[in-house]
């Protein structure tokens, strides 16, 4: 009797195991066990907060207390309060800086992709700032820009009298440019490495073919290099726009939380939420920023579609030329 039930249990567990290793069951088992944690975390920390943000933005509330429903008043406040709205202007400095940064990165990536001495040294020198801790970067440049310190010493060594130099961090006509320069310092080399990675993936025989066709360096850049990096390029343009609105560490450290008119949108948002405890208003600010990001992405998609179509025909042309060329040789 007992041995009988034992056998039954054995048989049952055997069939359970058989059921378990059935391909279909196993497949779903793998899918669920492997995917469940990351998906839950994603929903919990990205999508749920976005939903909550939209909800909070309609209330007057702090982290501990809800004071009442206010409808769209928070949104109106963002555009009506000059101290908030003027941060968009500050972000424009960062956007201009980002364009300069991308242009410089493109220039250096291009010239380093041709044979140059000491490429490794130049590349390392320009790239390493990316690895510098943001807080450390803040202190480095606080030191750099202080009156009579590093920058002033270097400039006076070039014969510019100290009296004619501005206070880099205090003078409101220049201090935002000073901060933008620090973010250029940090990210230019990283952009350059990204671009040169994309340039490296270009088939080198294209250059040969092009130069035999009489293309100069500019033509090589315009018709071979540029199309090949259009993806990375548009991506970086987008990242720099969102980055310019959410710039945080430079004003946080260098001008002590955005003093002297250097507060960026994100600095104000942080202050609104965590110092002034106006969580509703801060949520509205975040929603506006997310909307801007989504709009930028849509525009980028459209631009990319257009650019891709163009570059597609370009590279097709060059390929055809190459084919003709190789046929000619044969």
């Amino acid at each position: 009797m007992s041995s009988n039930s034992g056998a039954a249990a054995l048989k049952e567990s055997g069939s359970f195991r058989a059921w378990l290793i059935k391909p279909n069951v196993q497949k779903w088992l793998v899918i669920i066990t492997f995917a469940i944690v990351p998906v839950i975390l994603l929903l919990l920390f990205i999508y749920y907060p976005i939903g909550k943000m939209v909800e909070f933005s309609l209330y007057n509330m702090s982290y501990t207390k809800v004071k009442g429903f206010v409808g769209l008043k928070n949104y109106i406040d963002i555009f009506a309060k000059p101290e908030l709205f003027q941060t968009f202007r500050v972000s424009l400095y960062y956007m201009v800086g980002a364009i300069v940064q991308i242009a410089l990165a493109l220039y250096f990536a291009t010239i380093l992709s041709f044979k140059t001495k000491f490429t490794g040294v130049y590349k390392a020198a320009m790239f390493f700032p990316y690895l510098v801790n943001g807080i450390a970067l803040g202190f480095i440049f606080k030191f750099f820009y202080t009156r009579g310190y590093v920058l002033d010493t270097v400039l006076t060594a070039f014969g510019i009298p100290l009296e004619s130099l501005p206070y880099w961090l205090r003078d409101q006509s220049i201090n935002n440019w000073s901060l933008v320069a620090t973010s250029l310092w940090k990210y230019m080399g990283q952009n350059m490495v990204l671009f040169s990675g994309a340039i490296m993936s270009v088939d080198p025989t294209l250059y040969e073919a092009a130069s035999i066709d009489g293309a100069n360096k500019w033509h090589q850049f315009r018709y071979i290099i540029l199309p090949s990096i259009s993806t990375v390029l548009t991506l970086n343009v987008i990242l720099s726009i969102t980055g310019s609105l959410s710039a945080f560490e430079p004003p946080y450290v260098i001008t002590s939380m955005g003093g002297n008119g250097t507060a960026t949108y994100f600095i104000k948002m942080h202050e609104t939420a965590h110092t002034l405890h106006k969580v509703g208003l801060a949520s509205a600010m975040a929603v506006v920023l997310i909307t801007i990001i989504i709009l930028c992405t849509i525009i980028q998609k459209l631009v990319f579609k257009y650019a891709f179509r163009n570059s597609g025909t370009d590279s097709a042309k060059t390929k055809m030329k190459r084919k003709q060329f190789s046929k000619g040789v044969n």
Partner: protein
Amino acid sequence: MGVEKSARDYILKFFKHLSLIVASALCVLPVVSCVFAAFKTKEEFAATSKMALPQDWGHLDNFINFWNDSGIGLGFLTSIFVMIVVITLSVMMGSMLAYVLNRFKFRGNALIRNLFLYAALFPTILLQVTVYKLMIQMHLVDSLIGYIILQTGTDVIAIYILLQYFENLSVSLDESAVLEGCTYFGVFFKILLPLLRPAIVTCMILKGVGIYNEYYNASLYLQSKNKYKTVSTALYNYLGPTKSQYEIICAGVLICIVPILIIFLVFQKQVYSGMTNGAVKG
């Protein structure tokens, strides 16, 4: 004609090298000036030009003082601990998810991919306004576990890199293993995971740099300044907005950035390729 062309070439070459040298010098200059300042005594720093070499390269008091007073030692321990845990978790989760998304067709596959794709659009620090409230409700503010979960949970980049890498791993590997009686779990752990090494190295580099340099979340979620310190928060809390002893500030800055620069110099190649791999879809 030929002479003219070569003259033009020389001028172009000259400007090319000039621009490279100027740009490199500008990149290095701020850090070099910190090195000079960090080795000076207080009096020497006040009296000499900021670009003058220090008199005694053996003057280490600034470093010692910073190390003793800032608690950055604890900061290093915490940062390294968080790094190890987060990298392990996110690489494991990322590769498991990438395996499932790449190898199996099922309802919801495309949905999950898109959810991750669009999540990459939103800078995670932007969501902290409401995540903070969520973390309060879960009692995860001021807790190392909370910080670790947050750093792991919002990592989308690793999943991309791994997903991309899976595309290049032939399915015939899986098939032959299954024919030999291997389960899907076995296929993943015994066959595919070891092959993912290059992609895992990329993730480790990107994630490691990110965590080592992370400040914002650490300042929000590890608030008890005496209990928890990461490298960044120790640096900021000690040097603060008001300190003006730049010889000590510079020493602190160097202690913070030198480890990562050494790692960069040793693993230059991997770092560059990590950057490029990570950025394709970033």
